[in-house]
């Protein structure tokens, strides 16, 4: 049981780290940086430990379990009414690792932030803490608590440290984007909130403990009526079409590290929620509604990819490609067969690392060039060879090159989809083809081709950015070369999800 404290530490270290940061005077910027890097590194270490110490096939549904009583036997709450019940399963463990990696890389690339950097790191750690909390909570109340906690700092993170986008005919201000993102995400939590109330009343066992609620047999009509609330509510955060429009705007306006964590990890909370609250809690409802999710997910893939093709701004392109790639996750979940759901979780991890890398690279070039217009560049490989290589790896992973993580994930999704909905499988592959178009075009225009003399003063990325990027690339390769490391964790848990066969 004592290993459960590792999970509590995942949530507590960033929260108490943020509290400790408030005590450091803000003029000591380097102290703030070193301290933050130490927190980021310890989170990365903890996440690595949890992923590798997770024992596959030991029979327990959840490992590293921890239970702290919070409120019980008061009002409508019975025994173990609300407990801080933590634990990871085979899906939670890779997600924890993902957040550890991207969070640490995010701290590294934020090294150069100078304006109020203490406040930035405080809010950033609150964000990380919320994300870890969602991946590890086994209590419906705390799950939602951390879900909202992850949204809480977003407005200020984007509004204060973000950038506005200037288009020829209009300006999309950072305040607008920040507000849009926050309002969308909190609006998404409205149906989840209502769903939680309904589930608690219907179950009538006086506890918010998820494993206990999983044992309750909800009537079929109830499941069909309330599953869509969880689906749409979590879907908003997962970028589900047509509720995805916050994602490109919000991710473009956000500062680099926040885009990385938000697109890389936070969007996965939505997909994770569809599994935890939707499929595991209301399996019959899931079975009934999954065809609809398949249609929407495929729309995500195609629509996101076409929109990305139309962008000439690096960051908007990456933003729309996230919408497209999250579509594969939704498609994989909608198949309700082991290989498809496996693929979905693999894609969650793979896309998280890959999109984190892309946003890190976009941030690196923007901070020097102060433009993200890809057609303005050309032949960048000449004076920024490492930068070009990193970006190319991210791009190739995105389009599913074998040997990189994206291939493994998308391959699983496609196989799963062909088994259940062949037509949508074909459409998914079409989406991958469109991805290849915009990625390769972007690489050709900005990195290769004739060298643009205007950018001869651009220097290679800072060493902190290189370190963060290298970390992400290591895991892209790890997953591409040893997929079994991840598949073993995931598949065991996927088979235990009711209705997946």
């Amino acid at each position, binding site marked *: 049981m004592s290993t459960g404290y590792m999970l509590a530490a995942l949530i507590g270290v960033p929260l108490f780290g943020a509290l400790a940061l408030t005590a450091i005077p803000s003029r000591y910027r380097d102290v703030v940086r070193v301290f933050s890097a130490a927190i980021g590194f310890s989170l990365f270490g903890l996440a690595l430990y949890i992923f590798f110490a997770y024992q596959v096939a030991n029979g327990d549904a959840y490992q590293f379990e921890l239970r702290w009583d919070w409120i019980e036997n*008061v*009002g409508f709450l019975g025994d173990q009414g609300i407990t801080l019940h933590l634990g990871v399963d085979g899906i939670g463990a890779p997600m924890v690792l993902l957040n550890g990696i991207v969070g640490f890389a995010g701290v590294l690339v934020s090294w150069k932030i100078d304006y109020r950097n203490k406040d930035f790191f405080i809010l950033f750690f609150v964000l990380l803490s919320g994300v870890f909390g969602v991946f590890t909570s086994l209590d419906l*109340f705390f799950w939602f608590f951390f879900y909202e906690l992850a949204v809480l700092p977003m407005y200020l993170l984007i509004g204060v440290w973000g950038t506005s986008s200037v288009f020829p005919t209009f300006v999309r201000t950072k305040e607008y984007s920040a507000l849009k993102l926050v*309002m969308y995400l*909190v609006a998404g939590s*409205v149906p989840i909130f209502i769903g939680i109330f309904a589930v608690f009343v219907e179950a009538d066992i006086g506890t918010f403990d998820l494993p206990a609620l999983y044992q309750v047999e909800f009537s079929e009509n109830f499941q069909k009526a309330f599953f869509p609330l969880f689906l749409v509510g979590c879907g908003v955060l997962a970028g589900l079409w047509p509720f995805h429009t916050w994602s490109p705007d919000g991710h473009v306006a956000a500062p680099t590290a926040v885009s990385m964590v938000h697109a890389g990890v936070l969007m996965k909370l939505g997909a994770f929620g569809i599994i935890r609250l939707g499929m595991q809690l209301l399996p019959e409802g899931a079975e009934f509604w999954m065809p609809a999710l398949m249609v929407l997910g495929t729309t995500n893939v195609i629509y996101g990819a076409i929109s990305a093709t139309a962008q000439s701004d690096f960051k908007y392109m990456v933003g729309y490609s996230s919408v497209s790639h999250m579509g594969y996750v939704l498609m994989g979940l909608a198949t309700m067969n082991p290989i498809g759901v496996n693929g979905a979780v693999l894609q969650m991890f793979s896309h998280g690392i890959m999109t984190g890398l892309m946003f890190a690279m976009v941030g690196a070039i923007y901070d020097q060039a102060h433009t993200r217009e890809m057609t303005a560049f050309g032949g960048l490989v000449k004076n920024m060879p490492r930068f070009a290589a990193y970006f190319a790896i991210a791009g190739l992973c995105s389009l599913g090159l074998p040997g990189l993580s994206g291939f493994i994930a998308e391959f699983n999704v496609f196989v799963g989809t062909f088994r259940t909905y062949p037509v949508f499988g074909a459409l998914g592959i079409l989406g991958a083809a469109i991805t290849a178009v915009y990625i390769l075009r972007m690489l050709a225009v900005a990195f290769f081709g004739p060298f643009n003399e205007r950018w001869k003063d651009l220097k290679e990325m800072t060493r902190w950015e290189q370190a963060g990027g290298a970390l992400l690339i290591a895991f892209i390769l790890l997953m591409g070369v040893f997929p079994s490391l991840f598949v073993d964790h995931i598949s065991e848990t996927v088979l235990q999800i009711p209705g997946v066969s």
Partner: protein
Amino acid sequence: MNLNLDYSLLTPEFCLAFLAALVPALDLFVPRVRKEWLPYIAAAGLLGILGLSLGWMNKESDFAGLLHFDNFTTFFRVFFIAITATVCIASDQFVRERLRHPGEYYGLLILSTIGAIYMAAARELLTAYISLELLSFSLYVLVSYAKFDARSNEGGLKYILLGAFSSALFLYGMSLIYGTTGSTFYDEIAASLSDGTADFDLALLMGLVLVVTGLGFKVAAVPFHMWTPDAYEGAPLPITAYLSVASKAAGFALLLRLFAGAFVPVLEDWQWMIAGISAATMILGNLVALQQHNIKRLLAYSSIGQVGFMLMGIAALSDEAASALILHLTGYVVTNLAVFICIIQWYNLTGKEEIGDFRGMAERTPFLAVALAGAFFSLAGMPLFAGFLTKFILFQAAAEQDFLWLAAIAVVMSLVSLYYYLMVIKQMYIVEPEEPGRLHVPAVVNAVVFALTVGIFYLGIFPRHLFELVDNVTGFLFLS
């Protein structure tokens, strides 16, 4: 009838009345230099009486059947005295710089506290009415206390006219209830309603409607909320704070006692009425708040929205809902006090109260800005802060009583409220200040704000103790 006329039960209120007389007397008879000590003398006296009131903890007794002294009363005694003490300290600089006659100001505040306490303690209609009037009359004067400010006079006039009107409705409703049930004592009304000696006829329904209307005016429920924005805007800022916390809390304490003690046997007959008012209140309050430019009007409408949430606890009246309501009320009061003290201090420093005037607050008074932003997030129901938990519990308690639809509206309206709080936070954090430079905030204000912020976090992270306390407290409501 054997009446218990043990006057010692009323000791804390005798002390309060004495203090209310002492403070203006000090103002009159001691030299001018001592005036800045008045709020602290008042606060110290109040805290002393607060300590004294704790002596009634876990004791149960009643005074002539009119006032009931149990943990519910003790809780609200301590609660209201603490609120008044906080408001006294928060008033210090504002009153010194902008108002005349500080002695009477603090005296009236303390007097109103007695009314608030007896509203929570009363178990008889006329006693409840007189307590309500004691609170209201003190507030009528205080709202128009800025004598040379036309807005203050206008707000006060509106408040007194509509207040008098609503009192009349309340009284008329009482007379109808007395007519149908034959008593003004809560327990006798309940007995008469449950054994069917009182026919549930039109007169009783009419009486209930009028009582709800009269009390609806006092707590500012829609459609009886018209006076609120004007009174909030016109009143001196600390009085706005007091109106938004103490007078609301007292109204809900009275509602809880009355409905749980007297009208619970005919629950089905008034539940729909309160549920409808609750839905209308939260929708209108939150939507109209979106349009405001003045921070006081914004908070007036946001507090109307909050009243809508709290009315859910009355509509879904049960043990669980009552304790959830008091839990939410406590969280709301702590949070709103923090909001108002930050705003009072900002007003003291800049003399401005438009939302746009909060620009760059994060640069000029960083600590107040953090506290204010945190309190706003708490009001919007974000986690780590009190608001998330208290709303969650309150909405869930309503859902438990088949009011899932009401809970759903409440959640949507919480979302709306987040928008207008973010608009203020945007001014504070994102927009550049008008002029640079830190402003000096008195240490005592920082200390009070710090304490309230700690309270907000404490309720949000370790709510167990308060939840168990209020659960115990509401256990005394449903005796009949």
